[in-house]
C-alpha cells in the first residue's frame, strides 16, 4: 500500500504529520472564540471567518485521510492531569474511523455553514450562530479524535452544551427554550450512565486509554469478568442519550425547534452519530466475554450486545411507524433519523458476533451525507414557504424549486435504498449482517425499509407534487445560491460514495486481513448476499408503490389517517411517550424534590444549621449573665482564681 508506506515514513522520520490533528481540533475553537470576542458585531466577517476555519479543517482532515488511509497514529499527547494511578491525557488518536468521521464532521459542517449564510441571513444573532456552530464542530472533533474515555467524556459533554445552545438558539420562543432544556436533561441521563461505565472500566482495567484497553481486551477477553455486561450497557447509555435511542429518544423530535441548519448538522450528521461512533470506538467491549454480577444473574446468557441490538431494532421500527403519520416536514425527518440511528445501533449489536461493526459505521457515513442534504432541502422548502412546516400546506414545489426538489428526491431515494445510491449499499450491509446473525432482525430491517420508503415518498409526493395547498407554497420560489449550492455538493457523495470501497475500508479496520468481498463494488451486494440485496430493493419498491397508491393523486388530506383510526391518533401523538413521561417522571420528580426540600428545610437548615446556631446562642445568653460589668466582681473572681491556682500548685 502506498498510503501505508507514506505513513510509515512519516512515523520514522519523526515529522509527525499526525500532529495536524491538533490544528484540526483547535481551529474551530479559535474561530468560535475569535468571533465571539473580537467581531461580535461584524456579520459578513464572522461568516467568512468561521466558514474558512471549518473548510481549512476539512482540507487538513482530507490530508490526514490521504496520508494515513486506514493506518492508526497518535498525535503528541498533552498531559492534562497526571495524578497517581491515572494519567488524564488530552491525546488525539487517528485511525480509519477517526479520519472518516473527521471528514464527515468538517465536510458537512462547512456546507451547513455556507448554507446558513443564506438561511440565517435576516437573523439578528447571525454572528452568535456562527460562533456557536464552530464551538459545536470543535466539541464534535474532540469526540472523534479522543484517545481516551475521559477526554471523550469531556467533549461528549461539550457537545451537549453546544447543542443546548443551538437548539435554544431562538430562545425568545418558549418552545425552543423548553426543547433545549429537554435535550440537555435527557442527554444528562444517558451521560450519567456513561460516566458510571467509564468508572467501572477504570476500576477494573486501571486505564482509560482506548488503545491500551483494546490491547488488554485482546489479551484477555474476560478482563471485566462479571462487570463486562454492566459496563457495556452503561457505556451504551451514553450512546442512547446522544444517538436518541428508545427510551431516551424524546429529545430529538423536539430539537427540531432549532434552526434547520442546526438540525442538519447536529441532528442528522454529527451529534446523533456520536453515539454510534463511540460504540464503534469501544467495540471491543461488546465482543468481550459477557458476564453479569450475581445480582443480575437472570441476564446470564444474554450479552450486552444482544440488548443493544434489541433496543436499536425497536427504536428503528418504533420511530419509522411514528414518522408515517407526522405532518411537520422536519419532524418526519427527525423520526426518520431516529429510525436510521436505530438501524445503526442494531448493526453494532449484531456485529458483535462477527467482531465487525463496519456496516453500522458505513451507514453512519452515507446517512450523514444524504440526511444532511434532506434537512438542508427541508430548510430550503421552509425558507421558501415563509416558515411553513406542515407538508399538507405545501404542494407543487417541484416546478417552483427544481434544485431543491431534485436533491431532495435524490436524498429520498438514497434513504430508501435504491441502487446505485449510497444508502442502498450501507443498508444492504446491515441487512446482510442481520441475515447472518439473526433472521428476526433481518425482518425488522426489511420492515423499516418498507416504512422508510413509504413515509419519505409520502413526504415528497405531498410536498412537491400536485397543487399548492397553502399561501406559502403558492408564492414559493427557489432559494438563493448560497443555499442550493451546499445541496448540490451534498448530492455528490449521496450519489457516488458507493463507488468508493468504503465498506471494505471500514471492515478492514475491525477485522484486519479479513478477505474482502472483492469484485465489482456496484453489483457486489447482489453477488455476495443476493437475499439481503433483493429483499432490501423489494422492500423499497413495495414501500414506494404503497405510498404512490395513496398519495399519487395528491389528495388534500391524508387518506391514511381515517383508515388507521385510533392507531393514527397514537402515531400522531408519538405513542404518548411524552405524556407517559409527563405522568410518571414529573410526579416522581416532584415527589423527590419535595422530599429533598423537606430534608433541606428541616434537617439541614433546621436541625443542623439553625440548631447549631441556637445552641450557641442559648449558651451565650447563659454565659452573659456572668459578665456583671462591675470591676469589683472581676477583681474578686480574679483573686479567687489566683488563690485557687496557688492552692492547687502547693498541693
Amino acid at each position, binding site marked *: 500500500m502506498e498510503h501505508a508506506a507514506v505513513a510509515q515514513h512519516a512515523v520514522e522520520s519523526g515529522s509527525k504529520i499526525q500532529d495536524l490533528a491538533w490544528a484540526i481540533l483547535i481551529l474551530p475553537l479559535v474561530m468560535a472564540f475569535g468571533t465571539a470576542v473580537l467581531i461580535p458585531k461584524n456579520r459578513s466577517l464572522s461568516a467568512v471567518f468561521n466558514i474558512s476555519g471549518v473548510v481549512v479543517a476539512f482540507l487538513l482532515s482530507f490530508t490526514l485521510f490521504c496520508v494515513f488511509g486506514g493506518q492508526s497514529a497518535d498525535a503528541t499527547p498533552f498531559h492534562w492531569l497526571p495524578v497517581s494511578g491515572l494519567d488524564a491525557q488530552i491525546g488525539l488518536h487517528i485511525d480509519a474511523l477517526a479520519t472518516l468521521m473527521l471528514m464527515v464532521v468538517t465536510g458537512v459542517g462547512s456546507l451547513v455553514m455556507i448554507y446558513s449564510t443564506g438561511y440565517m441571513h435576516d437573523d439578528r444573532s447571525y454572528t452568535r450562530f456562527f460562533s456557536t456552530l464552530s464551538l459545536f464542530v470543535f466539541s464534535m472533533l474532540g469526540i472523534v479524535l479522543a484517545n481516551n474515555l475521559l477526554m471523550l467524556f469531556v467533549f461528549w459533554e461539550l457537545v451537549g452544551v453546544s447543542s443546548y445552545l443551538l437548539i435554544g438558539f431562538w430562545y425568545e420562543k418558549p418552545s425552543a427554550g423548553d426543547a433545549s432544556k429537554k435535550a440537555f436533561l435527557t442527554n444528562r441521563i444517558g451521560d450519567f450512565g456513561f460516566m458510571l461505565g467509564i468508572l467501572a472500566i477504570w476500576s477494573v482495567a486501571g486505564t482509560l486509554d482506548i488503545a491500551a484497553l483494546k490491547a488488554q481486551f485482546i489479551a484477555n477477553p474476560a478482563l471485566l469478568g462479571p462487570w463486562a455486561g454492566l459496563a457495556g450497557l452503561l457505556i451504551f447509555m451514553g450512546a442512547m442519550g446522544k444517538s436518541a435511542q428508545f427510551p431516551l429518544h424524546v429529545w430529538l423530535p423536539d430539537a427540531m425547534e432549532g434552526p434547520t441548519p442546526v438540525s442538519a448538522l447536529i441532528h442528522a450528521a454529527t451529534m446523533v452519530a456520536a453515539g454510534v461512533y463511540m460504540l464503534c470506538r469501544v467495540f471491543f467491549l461488546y465482543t468481550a466475554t459477557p458476564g453479569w454480577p450475581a445480582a443480575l444473574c437472570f441476564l446470564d446468557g444474554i450479552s450486552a450486545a444482544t440488548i443493544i441490538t434489541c433496543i436499536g431494532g425497536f427504536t428503528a421500527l418504533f420511530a419509522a411507524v411514528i414518522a408515517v403519520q407526522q405532518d411537520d416536514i422536519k419532524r418526519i425527518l427527525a423520526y426518520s433519523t431516529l429510525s436510521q440511528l436505530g438501524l445503526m445501533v442494531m448493526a453494532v449489536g449484531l456485529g458483535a458476533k462477527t467482531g465487525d461493526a463496519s456496516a453500522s459505521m458505513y451507514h453512519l457515513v452515507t446517512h450523514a451525507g444524504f440526511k444532511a442534504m434532506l434537512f438542508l432541502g427541508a430548510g430550503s422548502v421552509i425558507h421558501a414557504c415563509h416558515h411553513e412546516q406542515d407538508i399538507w400546506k405545501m404542494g407543487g414545489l417541484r416546478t417552483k424549486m427544481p434544485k431543491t426538489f431534485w436533491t431532495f428526491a435524490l436524498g429520498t431515494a438514497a434513504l430508501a435504498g435504491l441502487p446505485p445510491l449510497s444508502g442502498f449499499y450501507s443498508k444492504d450491509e446491515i441487512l446482510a449482517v442481520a441475515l447472518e446473525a439473526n433472521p428476526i432482525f433481518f425482518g425488522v430491517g426489511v420492515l423499516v425499509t418498507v416504512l422508510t420508503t413509504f413515509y419519505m415518498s409520502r413526504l415528497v409526493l405531498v410536498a412537491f407534487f400536485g397543487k399548492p395547498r397553502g399561501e406559502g407554497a403558492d408564492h414559493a420560489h427557489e432559494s438563493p445560491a448560497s443555499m442550493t449550492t451546499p445541496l448540490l455538493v451534498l448530492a455528490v457523495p449521496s450519489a457516488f460514495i458507493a463507488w468508493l470501497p468504503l465498506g471494505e475500508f471500514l471492515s478492514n479496520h475491525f477485522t484486519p486481513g479479513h478477505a474482502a468481498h472483492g469484485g465489482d463494488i456496484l453489483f457486489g451486494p447482489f453477488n455476495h448476499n443476493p437475499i439481503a440485496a433483493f429483499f432490501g430493493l423489494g422492500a423499497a419498491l413495495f414501500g414506494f408503490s404503497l405510498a404512490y397508491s395513496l398519495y399519487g393523486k395528491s389528495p388534500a388530506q391524508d387518506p391514511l389517517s381515517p383508515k388507521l383510526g385510533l392507531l393514527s391518533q397514537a402515531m400522531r401523538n408519538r405513542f404518548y411517550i411524552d405524556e407517559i413521561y409527563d405522568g410518571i417522571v414529573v410526579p416522581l420528580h416532584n415527589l423527590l424534590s419535595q422530599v429533598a426540600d423537606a430534608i433541606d428545610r428541616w434537617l439541614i437548615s433546621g436541625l443542623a444549621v439553625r440548631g447549631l446556631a441556637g445552641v450557641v446562642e442559648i449558651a451565650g445568653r447563659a454565659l452573659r449573665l456572668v*459578665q456583671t460589668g462591675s*470591676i*469589683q466582681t472581676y477583681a*474578686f473572681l480574679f483573686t479567687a482564681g489566683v488563690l485557687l491556682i496557688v492552692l492547687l500548685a502547693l498541693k
Partner: protein
Amino acid sequence: MTPGLHHYLIVSALLFSLGLLGVVARRNLFVIFMGLELMLNAANLALVAFSRYHNNLNGQVMVFFIITVAAAEVAVGLALLVALYRKRQTAHVEDLTSLKL
C-alpha cells in the same frame, strides 16, 4: 526578740489582705485605688524583707524604682479618676457598669 523574716511577711500579708478587702468590698473608686496602693506596698515590704534576709541589696534598689514608678502611676490613675468623675459625676463602681451588654 528581734523581728525575723516571718514577722515582716505576716505584716506584708496582712497589709495585702487589707488592701484586697478594700478593693473588693468598698464602693468608692478612690478608696479602691487606695486599697490597690496598699497591696502594692505590701508587695514592696515583702521584697525588702527578702532582700534583707538574703543580704542582697538588689531587692531594695528594685523597691526604690517601684516606688518611683508607682508615684507616676498614681498620678495617672488619679488623673483618670478625676476625668471620669467629671464626665459621669460619680465615683461609685455600681454606676460604672457600661462594660456590660
